[in-house]
């Protein structure tokens, strides 16, 4: 069965400090991992996906198959990064996304 675990419900970080949001997954096949973000009063939107190996808004995430992790990182937090972040796992063909419970990130000015 697919499972995504985000161990931190809440995370507070000072502006300018590094950010790391943890995500661990369980999946028997070849995983497709995503990070989605939801800013205040906005809809859920795709932040980045592991297959693209891209950096969006300064965020990066590396898939570690050995540790079954896909942690989201940013070297210097900005106030506009405050939001709810969800890690998601796609099954074959990505017909179904399995989401974690989310981490609410608050950047302290």
């Amino acid at each position, binding site marked *: 069965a697919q499972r*995504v675990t985000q161990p931190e419900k809440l995370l507070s970080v000072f502006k300018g400090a590094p950010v790391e949001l943890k995500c661990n997954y369980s999946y028997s096949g070849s995983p*497709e991992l*995503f990070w*989605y973000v939801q800013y205040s009063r906005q*809809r*859920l*939107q*795709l932040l980045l*996906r592991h*297959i693209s190996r891209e950096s969006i808004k300064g965020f990066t995430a590396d898939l570690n198959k050995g540790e079954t992790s896909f942690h989201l990182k940013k070297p210097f937090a900005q106030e506009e990064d405050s939001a709810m972040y*969800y890690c*998601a796992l*796609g099954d074959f*063909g*990505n*017909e*179904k*996304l*399995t*989401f*974690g*419970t*989310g981490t609410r990130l608050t950047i302290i000015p």
Partner: protein
Amino acid sequence: DAGVTQSPTHLIKTRGQQVTLRCSPKSGHDTVSWYQQALGQGPQFIFQYYEEEERQRGNFPDRFSGHQFPNYSSELNVNALLLGDSALYLCASRQGVVGYGYTFGSGTRLTVV
């Protein structure tokens, strides 16, 4: 482009009633998925529609059913509502069956009393 449009935005129903939620996908998208998001939880997959057929279904009872129309819009129907059905229902669309880039709607907040 308005993106994914869902209606209504809020809804209050009584236990035992039936409800229909509607979704218009983003222009150019033909695949629609529905998710239930309970308070404090991540979205949970209900089912996906493509070419007017249900392609995959999550762990939801048969009380949850759906439909996709030729114009790709979709409906989610829930019968015999339970208090536990109270949640935010999200619609997500994309182009094609395989791929990425789901676009989510703002959701319908259903409250069952």
